[in-house]
């Protein structure tokens, strides 16, 4: 059994939103809102999610590029293994509590690779000096020794020692990412955080860089936190995956299990959006509509319920799932007065005669993927009533009619973690009651 190198516990990063003359705090963007995970020694954990889900913020909070709002980041590298919690509940290896000297030491234990090769190097510093800067900062004043080390390292990442004096603009994107790897490695860290290291590269070069990362990881026993929005890249390099949505981890587990047996609907949707390089496979699967909601005001309950294709129907209701999703979308749109009956009318009018009210009703239903009659008579009545109200122009009452009748448990309760298999957890209400997650094991 290997040791845990990094434990993140309930990490939060909120950005205050200030307004007005006195910079009053009026709210907070909850970019990262309580995530927990562990990384074992030599392991690669993938962190996957759409843009805006907070994965990059999570990375910069873990590496202490930004001060986290709350939570613990326990780093057991640099020979600090085996420390136990102090009696007052704090942990001696908690990065958020490190003093300056300990922080310098932490910098030697954890490094990072960035996404954009074109901006990750100072254009006015030769790449050798850019890599050597880290050695210098950490007290190696011998220039010749620095040069020897960096030249050796450049060769290890597939460049030549002569490249030491060259400048970033003389390298291609793939080569720059190799140099970025060298820079991350030069202090001999235990952990490397890679923030979308290949998403700016061509596919052919992606494969090269990923295999280099794999080789180096094996050779030096590195642990990796690998951040990406691309599930297929995650599959190539990671041992375990954490799927993030709107600041929370919705599912975490071994990579093969996540790919073959995803438990959270969001994971399913992410997986089905990977373009399969099989021309016979049809464009299809689950379409994730819309974008990630704002982290300033995240949806109540399960944060994914506004886009979820498996959103739960209340007890006693059993209608077509697409209809249900459509009804919820319709309710939400009417609620914020975004169903424009005039626009619908115009759309139909474009194809011929003045539309009748029933045509408008049918069009709205089609727009929201709701079938002509909803299976449940009561719901159907509510829907018809709301549609009538809408056409009459009373969207406010239509909204209240709908929101009274259409509710989902997903919006009311926050899901707990459910354990599906050892190390495979997800947070979805559909799994509630199957097996309650154990409380976090004593993390030390």
């Amino acid at each position, binding site marked *: 059994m290997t040791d845990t190198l990094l434990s993140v516990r309930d990490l939060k990063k909120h950005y205050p939103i200030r307004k007005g003359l006195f910079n009053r705090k009026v709210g907070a963007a909850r970019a990262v809102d309580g995530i927990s995970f562990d990384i074992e020694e030599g392991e690669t954990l993938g962190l996957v999610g759409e843009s805006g889900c907070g994965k990059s913020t999570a990375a*910069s909070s873990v*590496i202490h*590029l930004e001060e986290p709002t709350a939570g613990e980041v326990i780093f057991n590298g640099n020979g600090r293994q085996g420390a136990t919690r102090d009696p007052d509940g704090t942990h001696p290896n908690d990065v958020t509590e490190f003093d300056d000297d300990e*922080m*310098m*030491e932490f*910098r*030697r234990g954890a*490094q*990072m690779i*960035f*996404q*954009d090769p*074109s*901006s*990750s*190097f*100072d*254009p*006015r*510093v*030769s790449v050798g000096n*850019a890599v050597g*800067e*880290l*050695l*210098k*900062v*950490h*007290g*190696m*004043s*011998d220039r010749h*020794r620095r040069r*020897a*080390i960096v030249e*050796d*390292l450049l060769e290890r990442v597939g460049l030549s020692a002569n490249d030491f*004096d*060259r*400048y*970033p*603009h003389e390298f291609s994107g793939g080569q720059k990412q190799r140099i*970025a790897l060298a*820079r991350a*490695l*030069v*202090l*001999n860290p235990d952990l490397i955080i890679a923030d979308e290291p290949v998403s700016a590269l061509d596919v052919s070069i992606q494969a090269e860089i990923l295999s280099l990362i794999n080789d180096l990881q094996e050779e*030096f026993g590195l642990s990796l936190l690998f951040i990406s929005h691309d599930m297929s890249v995650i599959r190539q390099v990671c041992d375990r995956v954490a799927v993030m949505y709107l600041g929370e981890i919705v599912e975490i587990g071994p990579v093969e299990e996540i790919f073959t047996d995803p438990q959270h609907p969001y994971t399913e949707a992410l997986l089905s959006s990977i373009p399969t390089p099989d021309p016979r496979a049809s464009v299809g699967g689950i379409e994730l509509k819309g974008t990630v909601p704002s982290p300033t005001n995240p949806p109540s309950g399960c944060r994914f319920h506004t886009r979820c294709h498996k959103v739960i129907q209340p007890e006693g209701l059993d209608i077509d799932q697409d209809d249900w999703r459509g009804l919820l979308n319709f309710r939400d749109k009417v609620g914020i007065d975004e169903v424009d009956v005039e626009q619908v009318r115009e759309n139909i009018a474009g194809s011929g005669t003045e539309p009748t009210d029933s045509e408008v009703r049918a069009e709205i239903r089609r727009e929201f993927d709701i079938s002509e009659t909803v299976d449940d008579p009561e719901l159907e009545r509510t829907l018809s009533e709301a549609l009538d109200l809408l056409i009459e122009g009373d969207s406010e009452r239509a909204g209240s009619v709908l929101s009274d009748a259409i509710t989902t448990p997903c919006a009311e309760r926050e899901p707990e973690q459910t354990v599906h298999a050892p190390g495979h957890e997800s947070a979805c209400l559909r799994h509630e009651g199957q097996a309650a997650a154990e409380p976090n094991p004593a993390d030390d």
Partner: protein
Amino acid sequence: MATEESERFDKVDWNDLSRSGRFDLSINSIGMLLTALPLTLLGVYSTAFTGPRTATFEFIGLEQNLESLDFFFIFTLLLAFWYLALPLYQNPRMTRYYWKEFKRNRPAVVSLGWLGIVFVGGLVGPLIMDPPQQQLLIGYQPPVFTSVVDTTPATCVGDVVNGRCFGTWQHPLGTTQGGKDVFTMIVYGMTISMQIAFITTTIVATIGISFGTLSAYAGGWIDEIMMRFVDIILSFPTFLMFLLILYIYGAGLGMFIVVFSLFAWGGTARYIRSKSLSISEEEFIKASRISGASTYQVIRGHVVPNAASSIITQLTLLIPGFLLAEAQLAFLGIGDSAVPSWGQLISAGRSDLSFAPWIVLAPGIVLFFTILAFNFLGDALLDALNPEAEAESE
């Protein structure tokens, strides 16, 4: 103890290394300190211990006198040498790249040549040439290859043919009313122009860069106050201020430089601030912070060099403004008439324009080309000093 093994990154024992290396001075800073120190001592000695009429180097038997402006000029030259010229030599690869980019712009290369002549002339000229002497007898000599009616000059130094006085190589650009050699005066004017260029640039750059980066990094209220202060600086009527000071203290060249550059750094500071803010968003700054570098090290090592190289253009374009301002003030007669600047020469010749146009034309043309050269240079530097833009377009 560096053995073979320790030249590998994973064999470094960090606990062995002391932290002292973090505060290493670069060779440039050492050089600057070693050269600026004697200069400062000399400056202090010159102003405090020798009388205003005594030459600075009297104690070793030389007659050269240095005034505070000269000390400051030499100081800026040292700065330029240690922090501009030497780094170019130290990074030959980057220098070659800059040169390759710069070379594309032909007019700029010619401009650089011209400014080189002005620079060397201004530096060496006064050392090897005697100051222009008043010789009323040979006033209004025409430039070489030209001639004037022989009644214009009191006595003609060259040949007089058919009632016309021809210019000679003795006074290649002719002489003024008082018989001062125009060429010599132009060379002496080069010194003045170079002093204006170097000293104003140094003052503007120093204040602008420190104010700009400080404001960007302090943020919040401090940033707000500092930027409002810049607004005041920018909207200040510098010319009126100068007139006021002129009435109270008299108009020296030093006063001109100080007043005008103290009110000219506003734009630079603002530019540096926004540039610093955008640079600090770059990933290489994050990488540097993660390496453990302190905020000072990040600013000194990455933010300032990147921001500064982008204001070189702006500074180069500021210089012509100062040179023109000086010339205009001199022409209006508000300058220090003891200073042999081009503007003073033009001003001195304006009443003789109808019959001795060379007195105005010669310095006027030199001034014109110098200003043009600075403008060309600024444009070319903008293109050459931006490796990122180049890399992206490829």
